[in-house]
């Protein structure tokens, strides 16, 4: 085992740097360290201006996503030992504007996320607490559970070749979340999500490359969700052609 390993970090402080650059750092090599541990070591002891997001250190908060040797990864789950002998190149998530070092601008993603109304919508009027909880069978839960595991880490966006070229694409995680609520037996909001989900820049921008599902740390399978939605949209489209179709 080596004593140290080299990290090549993407550095960019718009107030100070004219253009982004890479800076190499030696960090101690520890068998149980992940890339995030190495970044924290550098920030604490070498360069306090190093900027990146993180919180939980256990693959739950979704904030530590970066490109590690060109591949979107949760840095709290990327062990140094898997990148021996190094160097390890760490960059901000691909496809997003950079705010500072590894911190990317989230506005586009957040706006898309809220556009599909990712919450349970009820259209039935006058429901009160007294009417009780909405009950669900295990099968009804299983229909959407996988899609509800998303932690909004955006690794799937960084992996998606369509999103890299077409900024307006609603994108994998958001479409999977829309599907999560559309498939929920308690939800009645499908018709409010269709205009975004079934649009040209929604599911129809997807060419089923499948990289989103390959990189997802939570096995959400956004690619599968999008394919499912394509079938539903096609059924809706065919129905709309019928004279007695309901839309």
């Amino acid at each position, binding site marked *: 085992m080596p004593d140290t390993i080299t990290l090549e970090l993407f550095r960019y402080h718009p107030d100070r740097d004219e253009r982004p650059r890479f800076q190499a750092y030696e960090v101690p090599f520890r068998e149980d360290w992940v890339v995030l541990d190495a970044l924290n070591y550098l920030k604490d002891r070498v360069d306090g201006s190093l900027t990146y997001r993180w919180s939980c250190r256990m693959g739950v908060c979704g904030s530590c996503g970066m490109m590690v040797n060109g591949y979107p990864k949760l840095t709290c789950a990327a062990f140094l030992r898997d990148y021996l002998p190094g160097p390890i190149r760490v960059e901000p998530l691909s496809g997003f504007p950079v705010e500072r070092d590894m911190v990317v601008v989230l506005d586009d993603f957040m706006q898309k996320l809220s556009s599909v109304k990712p919450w349970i919508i009820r259209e039935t009027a006058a429901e009160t607490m007294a009417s009780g909880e909405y009950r669900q069978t295990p099968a009804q839960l299983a229909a959407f559970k996988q899609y509800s595991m998303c932690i909004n880490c955006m690794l799937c966006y960084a992996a998606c*070749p*369509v999103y890299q*070229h*077409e900024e307006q694409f609603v994108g994998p995680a958001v479409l999977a979340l829309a599907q999560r609520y559309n498939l929920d037996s308690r939800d009645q909001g499908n018709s409010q999500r*269709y*205009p975004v989900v*079934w*649009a*040209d820049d*929604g599911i*129809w921008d997807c*060419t089923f490359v499948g990289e989103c599902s390959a990189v997802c740390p939570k096995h959400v399978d956004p690619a599968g969700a999008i394919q499912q939605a*394509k079938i539903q*949209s*096609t059924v*809706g*489209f*065919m129905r*709309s052609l019928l004279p007695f179709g309901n*839309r």
Partner: protein
Amino acid sequence: MRYSNEPLFWSLFSAGGMLAALLLPVLIVLTGFVLPADEIAFSHLQDIFSNALIRLVLFALAFLVFMHWANRFRHTLVDMGLKSLHTPISVLSYVVAIAGTAWAALVLLG
């Protein structure tokens, strides 16, 4: 709401892809290997292919496979950066696909 017209092209694309995966290898083996190797007599195969129903199936296959090709071709070109030419590329792709289908009709149903 106004629907994207993508479902129409996508369903033809999907059907074509599915049929191509299932039937084309069989046809390639039959006409490319089994027949030249004299494993079955040409007249036997000709009998099978002169059946009207079989011809209809082959025609549907040709049509859907052309539709599959057109959709993939146009999306590939657009994704490779020709987004501004999306409409002419789409028109061209489907004109070629329809021409191919017409040719298949001429051969099979004529």
